Each structure stands twice: as C-alpha cells, then as structure tokens.
C-alpha cells in the first residue's frame, strides 16, 4: 500500500494495463509528451514510447473515431477528452457509434475502448469547463459509465474499464485529482457495477457519486456527531452497470433516501434511482425521497457563485435534517 493521489492512480492504472497487454494504447490532446493538462498521464510517454502513447491534434472527432477504429480491429485504446464538456463536440461517437455498433452489427463488431475525461466543478472554470455530464452518458444504451470518488477506486476501476469488452466512459473528477488515499500496490482491478457502502446508519441512506461522495461522508459524520442522525453512505462508483441490489437493500433498511448529484437537476441520475426505488421498494420507504442536485442552470465561474450552486456539505446536512425533522 502506498499513498497515491487520484491523478497518480490514473496513470498507475494505465501503466499497469499497458505492461500487461500490448494492445493497450493511449491517445489525446497533450496526453503524451506533456503528461496531460491534468497530469494524469505523467511518465507514460517516457515508459511506453510514442507508438503507444500519442499526442493528437485538437480534433475530438478524430480522437474518438481513431479510438473506435482501433478498438474494432484488435486494440484496446484509451482516448482522453480533456474536459467532459468537450464530449459535446464529438457526441456522435458517444451516442451513435460506440454504443450501437455491436447491436446494429448483430454482434459482429465490438468497441472495447475507454474514454477518459475530466468532469465536474471546483476549478472555477465556468460553464463550459466545469460541468458534470455523467447523466448524458447514462442516457445512452450500450455504454458503461464509471466515476470513481477516490484514488484506490480510480486505479481499480480504470483497470477494469480497460479490460472491459464494452465502451466505457470514465469520468475523472477534476476536484478530486489531488486527493490522496491508500492504493494497493501491484495489479489491482475492481469489478464494474458494484457500489461501495462506505458507512452504515439506521436513519437515512445517502447515495452519491464522484466528488459528492466525500461531501456526503463529511455530512454524515456531522449528522451523527451533532444531530443524532445516523446515515448510510453509498458510493455508486458506476452508473452503468448500476448496482440496484445495493441501492434497494440499503434504501429499504432506512426508508429515507437522499441522492447527492453534481449534474443539473433535470434527468439527473438520481431521478432514475428514485424511480427504481419507488417501483421496487415502495413499501419500505417512509417519506419523500430527496434529490440534492446542482440547480438547473449553467455553472457560474466566480468561486462564490460556484460554491453556492454545487451541493455542499452544509446543504446535504440541511436537506437531511429538514426531511427528517431533526
């Protein structure tokens, strides 16, 4: 075990898989010689050389298409889209090409690739470089959607994504990149589609993803210490495959469900989860399920405004207390 940052865990996972499998290649803007603008691919170019770790022009269509063509013909490409907001520039590949090719070809072709992308707010970059767009990807059948909340998960889930035979959109949260935790040494792979239950309580179940996970945990600690509310905290880790078994089991246990979502309100992932719970665990639910989300607005740049709109520890505490009347 070593203390690693989230960003170093990303490059460690890529190095682990590139050493293991010569089919794994990496491409992206500034991803090779410069080590990535978020420094998530540092050292890979030096270790694996320019045939496997390639800089691309600012051509998101070419990056996505090249990754797809390579994936269909025997490679395991990892493509980087610098900011998840830029997925909008190449959404055709995410929505129409990667996820539909296996189906339309009746299983003749597969697209085993990983799109890594920096997601989320906290860097004060404004409306076109700060969005949480995991719910965009969740809406498309045929994709897998992964969004780790800590360095250890980043390593294990990225390794699994690279090995996965389906297209995976892998969201790395900008605001977590400097966070450190214990990360297993050596080969480390986590299964996709398994949520993590980070703490268990009896009064409330808080379901979170990515940067909302540490906030939900901190809120749960305060709720327990200062307000007599004991909360379960679930880190979804993957939106697809979705671990509904864990969600349903722990929602039913407390009967009070809270989702903490960084994506904007409408059609955020929490809406789907709340819908599943009400259909399949209705009799266990004791009160309205509460979605704590970013409001349905573009993101502002100023720190004071950004902090106002992204779900904060204080807001999570307030919403839980309000709903439970404590």
């Amino acid at each position, binding site marked *: 075990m070593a203390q690693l940052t989230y960003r170093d865990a990303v490059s460690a996972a890529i190095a682990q898989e590139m050493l293991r499998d010569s089919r794994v290649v990496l491409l992206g803007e500034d991803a090779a010689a410069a080590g990535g603008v978020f420094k998530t691919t540092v050292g890979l170019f030096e270790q694996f050389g320019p045939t496997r770790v390639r800089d691309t022009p600012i051509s998101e269509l070419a990056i996505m298409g090249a990754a797809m063509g390579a994936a269909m013909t025997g490679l395991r490409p990892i493509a980087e889209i610098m900011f998840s907001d830029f997925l909008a520039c190449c959404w055709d590949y995410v929505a129409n090409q990667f996820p539909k090719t296996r189906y339309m070809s009746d299983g003749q072709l597969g697209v085993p690739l990983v799109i890594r992308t920096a997601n989320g707010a906290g860097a004060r970059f404004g409306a076109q470089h700060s969005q949480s767009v995991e719910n965009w990807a969740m809406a498309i059948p045929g994709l897998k959607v992964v969004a780790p909340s800590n360095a250890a998960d980043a390593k294990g889930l990225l390794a699994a994504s690279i090995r996965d035979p389906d297209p995976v959109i892998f969201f790395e949260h900008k605001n977590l990149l400097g966070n450190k935790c214990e990360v297993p040494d050596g080969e480390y792979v986590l299964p996709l589609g398994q949520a993590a239950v980070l703490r268990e309580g009896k009064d409330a179940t808080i379901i979170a993803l990515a940067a909302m996970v540490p906030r939900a945990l901190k809120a749960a600690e305060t709720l327990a210490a200062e307000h007599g509310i004991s909360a379960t905290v679930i880190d979804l880790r993957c939106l697809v*495959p*979705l671990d509904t078994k864990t969600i349903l089991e722990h929602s039913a246990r407390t009967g009070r469900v809270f989702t903490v979502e960084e994506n904007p309100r409408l059609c955020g992932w929490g809406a789907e989860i709340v819908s*599943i719970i009400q259909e399949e665990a209705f009799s266990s639910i004791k009160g309205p399920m509460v979605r704590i989300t970013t409001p349905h607005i573009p993101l502002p740049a100023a720190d004071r405004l950004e902090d106002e709109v992204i779900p904060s520890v204080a807001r999570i505490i307030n919403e839980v207390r309000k709903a439970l009347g404590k």
Partner: protein
Amino acid sequence: MSSIAPPPSAANIPEATRLELYRQMIEIRYCEKRAHDMFLQNLVKGTSHLALGHEAVAAGFGVAMNKDDYTFCTYRGHHHTMARGASMLSVLGELMGRQCGLMKGKGGSMHLTSAENGVMGSYAIVGAHLPIAAGAAWSAQYRGTKQVAAAFFGDGATNIGAFHEALNLACVWKLPVVFVCENNGYMEYTPIGAVTAVANPAADRASAYDLPRQLIDGNDAEVVYQAACDAYAKARAGGGPSLIECLTYRHGGHSRADPGKYRPKDEVEEWMKKDPVVLYRIRLLQAGIAEATLDEIDATAMAKLEAATEAAKASPPPELASAYTDVYADGGAAWRN
C-alpha cells in the same frame, strides 16, 4: 471536371481481373435494381440509398483489395458490401428485415456490416466513418499487418468536420488509409457546387493536407481499379494515406423517397450515356472478349439474384428475443443487477 486522370493502359490488367470487375458490376447492378423493385412491392421497409450508377467505384476498389483489408462505407453502401463478397441473399435479407439478413434485421439498409468480409460497417451519420477508418489503419500500422482501410463517402461529406480531422490525422500519423469520395454531383437534393467553396470537393482539398490531387473517372472500372491498386501499394509501403475523388452519378434519387426531379433532364441523359456497366461491357467486347463469356456472367448473376430473392422472401422474420441481444458484450442488454 478539370485535369481528370487519363485511363490506364488496359494491357496492364489481366483478363481474369477484368472479368471479375465486370462480374462485380453486373451483380451489384442486378441486386440494386431488385432492391428497388422490392420497395415498390413493399417487401423492403424503411429507407434505402441505392448505388445504381456507382458500380465501377465499388468494383474497382473491391477487386483491388486483399481479403483482410477494411471497408468502411456510408448509408449508400450496398455496392461496397457486395464488392467485398457479401452475398445477395444476406444483403436483400437485411433490407427486408429477415433472419437471413447480414445483421438479422438489426441494422437495416443503412448499416450493412460483414466483418468476415472486411466490411466494418456502413455509417449513416455523414463523415463519421472517416476517422474510424483512420483508426483501423492506425491499428493495422501498430500491429504491422500491412492491412489497408478504405473509407467511401459522398461529395457532401467533404464539407463536414470529420472529413478534415480524419485527413489531417491520417497524414500526420502516415496511416495506411484510402479516402474515396464518390462525387455524384449532389449532396442529397442540392448540387454540391452550390454549397462548396471549390469545384472538386475532395480533390481540390488534397493540397491542404499535402496530398496529391487525384480526380478520376469513377465510371471507368479500370481507371478506378488502377487508382485503387496504386493507393493500396502506397499505403502498404508506408507511404500514408490517399484521397481519391471519383466522378460518378446516381441513376436515381438520393433515397427511396426522392425521385430526383431537381436534376436537369439533359444532365441525366448525358450521364446515362456514361453508364459504367454498359461502357465496360463495350470496352471488354472491343478488347476481344467473347460476347458469350459476358452473357454467361450476366446469366449466372441473374440466376443468383433469382435464387437470393426467393430465399430471402422465404426467410422468417427475426426472433423477437433478438431485439434484446448484443447491446453489451455479454450478449444481453442488462444495465443493472
């Protein structure tokens, strides 16, 4: 049509190859006509974009390829799919939404795919497959297989960003990919000249990527074949991509819904005189190939078509359960546990 490449010396092309070019063109011609007839009989549902008139491009490139080369085509892709060896039955069956179809009815006319024949999909979002073909070429380069990828696309695709991004990346990475523009003069219903800054939408852009300007007669199967062989040899030798503009003409409208009435009558008549199948038959007869040889190819193709048509009509529709298969690699559609 300025500075169009002259026809190659026919003596360079062996007779067996010439007959194969002819056979491919005849089979595509017959099968596309049959597809059209079956629309009228409501046996083919949905849309379809026929390649009648484009046969020489498909035959020329198809015959020039190795078995393990990659083809990426557009929604107008029946001809390229057949030129790689997919059967008439599998193509007609897919158009009809039958179990015998190439993808058992899950893709339809616009997405013909035959991976075993190197047809890595037909792409219905204009331009999308050019970067994908570049990626397949990158893979071939990385694996050292000497395979070449070809992307076929219409004149309209030259005005979309993916065309330019793919060209640039392919040149920078020196990828073994051949970009083939089938310029039939019309971007769907609009003359390409009315919406394009240059006269030859692909050839006139080649210099922007430091590629030679290649403008050829896309209705001459041997011209196409020769250009294809040259581009493939260059790609296999590590010389990087080619961009080839083939001048051709649709015999019909853009799609099933389009009678193509926006095209001037004399223009249509002029191009019908340059029917690639008719011209090639005359060329072969003039070269001394016996009429009986060509008649036999025609008759064999027609017999294959009749058999394929009957077999496709007799084929059952797909199993309902297949609507839920092959979303993910585990064979199913499960997004949750």
